[in-house]
């Protein structure tokens, strides 16, 4: 009898661990499931061209989500990324279309495209630094601090053009600022430049998170801020750095989006922050900090991207698309809780 009990216990433990593995891989499984679903349901879904288009669409959200993951890992949140996308796009667009106007000197400087890119990235990173300083030095809760910069950056974007679009950003030969559309619509060996940017950023971000002291500190701050501080981690610096990373990523996206459209619109990037948070959470990042992987976030972004594109290709209406996306996010969080509870139980048993 006792051996029967033991076997029963063992097999139930076996079931638990199998279930645990399935739950750990849930995002990846979800990606396979939605891909298979659309492969059967959506016309022309399975093709190299479509895979490239989807990757291009995912890149926008995934790059934002990389920065967001860093912030969330420290236990923070960055709501300003969507506005930074809009503002940096407008900065780039304004510089290309109208140059840098210095009325005091009576001159207009037209920076070339690499300089425009550099300035836009600098603006995004600087806003991130402001977020970080607000959160650390002034002790403003991350939600509030970045909500504030969300409005400020959006307002600044509108102010830059008085609300209108900077269009036809192809540059002029005589000004030496041609070539901007390459970021959004260029290809290398058939792969869009934006996808290449995503791959490079994701690899660097994953390496930094897993293999460098800085990455270790990010996880430590999110796991136990006090312990990190007592171990000599300069918590404030780590936090400021993650917001700067997030701002930088948002600026990259701002450049990609405006380059794709060859136009920058001040409202561009609205609600992008929510998609980025959703991707991170879908990928298993815990909003309370300390837990999550860049790889998971990228897969999470792909689940959202495949879902959106697939539903559009199937011709499902906007309203249903929203309902389905919401349900997927809720399901992801429920499964995450389930996995944690199971893991805790199996440790105690």
């Amino acid at each position, binding site marked *: 009898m006792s051996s029967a009990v033991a076997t029963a216990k063992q097999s139930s433990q076996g079931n638990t661990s199998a279930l645990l593995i399935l739950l750990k891989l849930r995002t990846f499984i979800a990606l396979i499931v939605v891909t298979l679903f659309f492969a059967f349901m959506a016309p022309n879904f399975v093709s190299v061209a479509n895979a490239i288009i989807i990757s291009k669409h995912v890149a926008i959200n995934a790059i934002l989500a990389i920065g967001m993951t860093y912030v969330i890992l420290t236990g923070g949140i960055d709501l300003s990324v969507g506005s930074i996308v809009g503002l940096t796009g407008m900065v780039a667009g304004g510089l290309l279309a109208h140059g840098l106007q210095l009325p005091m000197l009576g001159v207009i400087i037209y920076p070339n495209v690499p300089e425009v890119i550099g300035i836009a990235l600098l603006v995004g990173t600087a806003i991130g630094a402001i977020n970080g300083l607000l959160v650390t030095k002034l002790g403003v809760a991350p939600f509030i601090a970045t909500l504030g910069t969300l409005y400020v950056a959006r307002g600044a974007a509108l102010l830059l053009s008085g609300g209108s679009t900077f269009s036809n950003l192809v540059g002029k030969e005589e000004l030496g600022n041609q070539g901007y559309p390459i970021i*959004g619509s260029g290809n290398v060996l058939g792969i869009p430049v934006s996808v290449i940017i995503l791959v490079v950023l994701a690899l660097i971000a994953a390496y930094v998170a897993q293999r460098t002291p800085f990455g270790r500190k990010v996880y430590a701050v999110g796991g136990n801020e006090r312990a990190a501080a007592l171990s000599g981690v300069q918590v404030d610096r780590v936090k400021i750095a993650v917001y700067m990373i997030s701002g930088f990523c948002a600026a990259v996206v701002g450049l990609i989006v405006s380059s*794709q459209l060859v136009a920058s619109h001040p409202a561009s990037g609205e609600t992008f922050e929510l998609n980025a948070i959703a991707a991170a959470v879908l990928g298993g990042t815990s909003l309370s900090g300390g837990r999550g992987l860049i790889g998971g976030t990228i897969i999470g972004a792909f689940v959202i991207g495949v879902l959106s594109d697939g539903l559009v290709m199937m011709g499902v209406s906007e309203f249903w698309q929203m309902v389905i996306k919401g349900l997927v996010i809720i399901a992801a969080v429920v499964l995450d809780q389930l996995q944690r509870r199971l893991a805790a139980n199996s440790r105690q048993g």
Partner: protein
Amino acid sequence: MKLVKTLAALALGAMAGVALSAPVLAQDGGLMVIITPSHDNPFFKAEAEGAQAKAEELGYTTQVYSHDDDANKQNELIDSAIAAGAKAIILDNAGADASVAAVQKAKDAGIPSFLIDREINATGVAVAQIVSNNYQGATLGAEAFVEAMGEEGNYVELTGKESDTNAGIRSSGYHDVIDQYPDLVMVAQQSANWSQTEAFTKMESILQANPDIKGVIAGNDTMAMGALAALEAAGRDDVIVVGFDGSNDVRDAIVAGKIYATVLQPAYRQAQWAVELADKYLKEGSTGMDEKISMDCVLIDETNASDLETFALAE
């Protein structure tokens, strides 16, 4: 001390902003106050400029304000118009319900209001309410689209924000025309929420699912521009695109042969008409027309695109 100075400067700046253009020329006709949502948006700017030009041409002095879609600010502006003894108010209002009381207040003070672009949810308060006929405009755009398509082929429709009335009116205007031609097949219909970015990504996906499309009809010009960017990225210069609004971006694209047509809401002309009606009302005691006036839209294609400048069509 420095702070005080800064604040004072800010306050002065704000006041100067409100009195954007103080009475320009002392002419005999009296004061006409023109209030529009903002001067940042080229559409509203065209309204303000149209009304101002016409009023001064007819011998009125003008004051031009913007309420920034803030019903409270609109209310204050109407108060100051009353205080300034305006003869008439030209208004693109800040909300169908929220504006009724303000317009009523002007009426009670003996000042007639002439509404443009948007209606209010009351009649008998304003003297005239001129709105663009979105439905008529949509049928114009759709007829041009059908002709360009040669009455056959697959097409895509990008609609505006689905909760917005104009999105629905324009879409039904399109379909009432297009659906008469059975060989025109709508293979995809998606909302891109008036957004250029969204129109771009959705158009790319739709192109994957339906490479055999011949045309795209969009609920506004921003979405038409987004769709155009996606088509260009895919190397498709053979697709017919039609938009709605008459923005300068789309005008340029029409001139360059990339977009087939758009529909102009004649903001400039509409504002001028409101001033003309006001002038007639002040002189004759009646506009001679119903309160609710629907103003037809104008089709813009390669024949007249070069005459278009910020919502005003050269005559």
